[in-house]
């Protein structure tokens, strides 16, 4: 979807301002929100792509005015409601009004949960040989799907070069739209700054994206 989350190339957000004194979390609820997302995310009720989509579909004004952990919390609350894990009445009262249902997988539990934090593997078996090869010129498709996609707007329609083949990974678009783990070849595609930004590009810049095969066409 062409949402406000797709920020690459937008103007007007101002300077990057590192915090003078960084802390892991600014408040306790940020920490709890992160950990709740991690634990509930391990229950197999949704995957990383679906989790992202439920952040992207926050109302634009909410997205832009919410901190990172607030967005994470709102996403979790919405997903729990949508999947029937909690009800509006329970959220309003702050307590459960009945037993839970079985989850697809037992979520992380116990005092050792933090010791086993490791990212998932997204490899999928290829369904066909890779269509493109390293060094080939490709065009990022001019597509505007209304559902989830990981092809950023700034790349669409532009010519780039296949730099790496990263293997065959779970295709986010199909996961969100159809709920299926569909393997697609993933490429690093590099674009010259001038191809993306024309005469407004900075001198000597190149930008790559990680592009699934359906995002690309031969040039």
């Amino acid at each position, binding site marked *: 979807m062409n949402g406000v*989350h797709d*920020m*690459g*190339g937008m*103007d007007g957000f*101002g*300077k*990057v*301002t*590192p*915090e003078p*004194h*960084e802390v*892991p*979390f*600014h*408040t*306790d*609820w940020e*920490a*709890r929100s*992160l950990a*709740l997302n*991690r634990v509930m995310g391990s229950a197999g009720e949704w995957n990383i792509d679906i989790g992202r989509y439920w952040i992207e579909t926050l109302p634009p004004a909410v997205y*832009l005015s919410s901190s*990172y952990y607030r967005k994470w*919390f709102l996403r*979790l609350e919405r997903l*729990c409601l949508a999947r029937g*894990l*909690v009800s509006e009445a329970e*959220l309003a009262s*702050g307590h*459960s009004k009945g*037993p839970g249902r079985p989850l697809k997988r037992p*979520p992380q*539990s*116990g*005092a*050792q949960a*933090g*010791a086993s*934090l490791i*990212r998932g*593997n*997204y*490899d999928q078996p290829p369904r066909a040989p890779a269509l493109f090869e390293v060094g080939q010129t490709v065009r990022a498709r001019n597509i505007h799907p209304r559902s989830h996609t*990981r092809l*950023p707007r700034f790349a669409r329609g532009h010519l780039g070069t296949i730099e*790496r083949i*990263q293997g065959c*990974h779970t295709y986010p678009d199909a996961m969100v739209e159809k709920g299926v783990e569909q393997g697609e070849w*993933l490429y690093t595609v*590099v674009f010259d700054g001038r191809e*993306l930004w024309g005469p407004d590009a*900075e001198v*000597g*810049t190149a*930008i*790559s994206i990680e592009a699934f095969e359906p995002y690309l066409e031969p040039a």
Partner: protein
Amino acid sequence: MTGDHDHDRKHGHDHDHGHGSELSEMQLRVRALETILTEKGYVDPAALDSIIEAYETRIGPHIGAQVVARAWVDADFKAALIADASNAIAQLGLQQKVGDHLVAVENTPTTHNMIVCTLCSCYPWDLLGLPPVWYKSAPYRSRTVKEPRKVLADFGVTLPADTRVRVWDSTAETRFIVLPMRPAGTEGWSEEKLAALVTRDSMIGTGFPKAANEVAP
């Protein structure tokens, strides 16, 4: 209620919200959801505590710094890291395991690499810990792909005009870490001493390692 405590923590730190009422609203909402999910048996609060503790105390840029320092002293490891970072790091036997699909990109005198995620905030948590607020912010996410040199200027970093800037947008499950150049004057240094030079920002590409004379001899 721990509202006063949280208000104190927030004061002067939280740039995202200017008014105190939202803090208490968020505190109440997060607590309500945690309570409900716990009462239903979905969530074990001990697991939450353990995850928070891991990110507060164990998982951080010191892991990435160890990897960079090893690459600076061991050419074979560096070659393996560039070829397949996940596999090479797994061979190091670090206490904290790292995930798959990691890619290490090397800075050279002619190319400077920067990592961004324009669509959300993808970041190599395994190696660098919690992402800093600026990495997740709209200014960094919007500008880095269009004007990376101006973004670097916000960090006080200026590159030679003929150095090529390469920006890696983390739009899939691949994760990137920058292998910065080894500072001059560090010949013969131990890995441990070298690791102390490796800043988090140098592994994102928004900074350089410390100079040799910036650490205690």
